[in-house]
């Protein structure tokens, strides 16, 4: 299986965590394309919500930005950031929050602020955007990221968006109202899932043709495997591949063709 197919499958697999009818707070980047895939494939009645204030659009392929006219298309509301992140997300109405990030640690905390020390940064990253809000208030959190060792450290240099913070009670201790969300991290090698008993990610699924050893070699934190071992991510169907290729990202904005 090629890297290209793994990339495709990462997007398709992430989309599988969105159910029809879900209200989904869609962060920028890969979440936009995976959510669009879900909308076109199996969740036509999902509510695609973008932080800039766009609610329920019928997205035109392929949006590159939260301000893209493609995510304004036939929306049911062109509102404000507070319409999206306040009245839907902070209000507790987001079924799914979908983000990406530069670092994801074993507690599913996400860093999109800084590599190195905050006050003496090695690399300054763009910052939270809506990601902190999305990870704080969504009932289910999806995180999508290409699998590289530096992206998966034991501990984030900076916690921008909360996972389980430091353990099973981390969110509760911090005062978050959604204190035990489902969290799935979908990469081009595997799917991690939160174990609510430990607050840590475990290896729930693995991509076809990828070995546990591959994942270990590309991950900075300890790989935990359940007794039953990881499932294998369902192969993409030809229909899924061609939908992604032809109707979701036809010009290869996100994915190599």
């Amino acid at each position, binding site marked *: 299986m090629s890297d290209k197919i793994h990339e495709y499958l990462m997007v398709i697999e992430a989309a599988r965590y969105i159910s029809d009818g879900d209200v989904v707070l869609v962060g920028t980047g890969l979440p936009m394309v995976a959510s669009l895939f879900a909308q076109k494939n199996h969740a036509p009645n999902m509510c695609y919500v973008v*932080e800039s204030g766009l609610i329920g659009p019928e997205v035109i392929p392929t949006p590159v930005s*939260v301000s893209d*006219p493609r995510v304004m298309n036939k929306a049911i509301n062109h509102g404000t950031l507070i319409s999206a992140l306040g009245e839907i997300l902070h209000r507790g109405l987001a079924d799914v929050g979908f983000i990406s990030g530069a670092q994801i640690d074993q507690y599913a905390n996400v860093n999109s*602020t800084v590599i190195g020390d905050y006050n003496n940064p090695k690399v*300054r990253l763009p910052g939270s955007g809506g990601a902190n809000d999305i990870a704080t208030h969504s009932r289910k959190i999806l995180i999508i990221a290409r699998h590289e060792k530096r992206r998966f450290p034991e501990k984030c240099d900076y916690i921008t968006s*909360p996972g389980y913070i430091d353990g099973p009670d981390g969110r509760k201790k911090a005062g978050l109202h959604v204190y035990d969300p489902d969290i799935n991290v979908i990469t081009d090698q595997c799917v991690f899932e939160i174990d609510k008993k430990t607050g840590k990610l475990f290896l729930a699924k693995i991509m076809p043709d990828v070995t546990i050893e591959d994942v270990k070699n590309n991950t900075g934190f300890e790989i935990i495997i359940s007794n039953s071992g990881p499932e294998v991510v369902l192969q993409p169907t030809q229909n899924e591949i061609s939908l992604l290729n032809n109707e979701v990202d036809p010009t290869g904005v996100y994915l190599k063709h």
Partner: protein
Amino acid sequence: MDRKFIEKVMTASEAVEQFVSSGSIVGIGGQTIGRCSMALAHEIVRQNKQNLILVGCSMSISMDLMVGAGLVSRTECGTGNVESFGATMRWRRAVEEGKLEVRDFSHLSMAFRFLAGSLGLPFMPTKSMLGTDLISESGVNSDSYIVMDNPWQNNDPVVLLKALNPDVSIIHAQKADKYGNVVIEGFKTHEIEMAKASTHVLVTCEEIIDSDEIRSDPSLTTIPYIYVDAVILQKWGGYPTSVYHHYVHDADHISLYQKVARVGGMEYQKYLDDYVYGCKNFDEYLSKVLDSSSKNSLIQEMDSLLE
């Protein structure tokens, strides 16, 4: 915030001269590659206003340009982001080199700070940012928030975000009338709250419309005239970012900007010299970078997305 019902049409040069000062807290409109207030950012650079504090949500190349020109002492925002084109590179370098103070918030937290400002409230509560380094890191934001207990529930910490009232906000909109009634089409991000929280608001627009159009559909007014000081007719005033209903972003020019911003130094300076300092106004910049065929293609791509 000129509450009077008077005509407020002027040039960008007049507006910036009158309402932006060195040291001003400047509210930045737009988001990433959409509807950024580029014409006013150019004019602020041209007029060399110093020690600015830039505040907003997703701040993009309008912010980066002012940072690159050395005019900014602090930013308070959620992101410095040009989406698929990368981070805002002059900002990123300035932060990495310790030359720029930053205060990081989540986007909703920034919007709530403006909301508090727009309502004359001292603060807004939020449950965002708890448990993360956005509120624990080094205390840099500590004069902008405190954590208190919810008086109605035990063990329920609440972040109080201090109100933020910019001295002046810069916004690019689709339409305004001459009195300053503004219509923003498409996404509206944090701009309504930010404008209403600001002491002064400067608005460039693609079109100045008759007030009758405003008054015939009063649900569409996004910012009433009582908040607005200056209305500037500036077609393509959001370029190279997109303006819904008018034109898409210009990927080529944004890439060009990102290229010189990434490199910095002489190359960046040359960009400023050629396209900002060397232009007497935004129209002159536009004439250097956009011919009628590239204009048409940006317009046509937008049209194709509107059905």
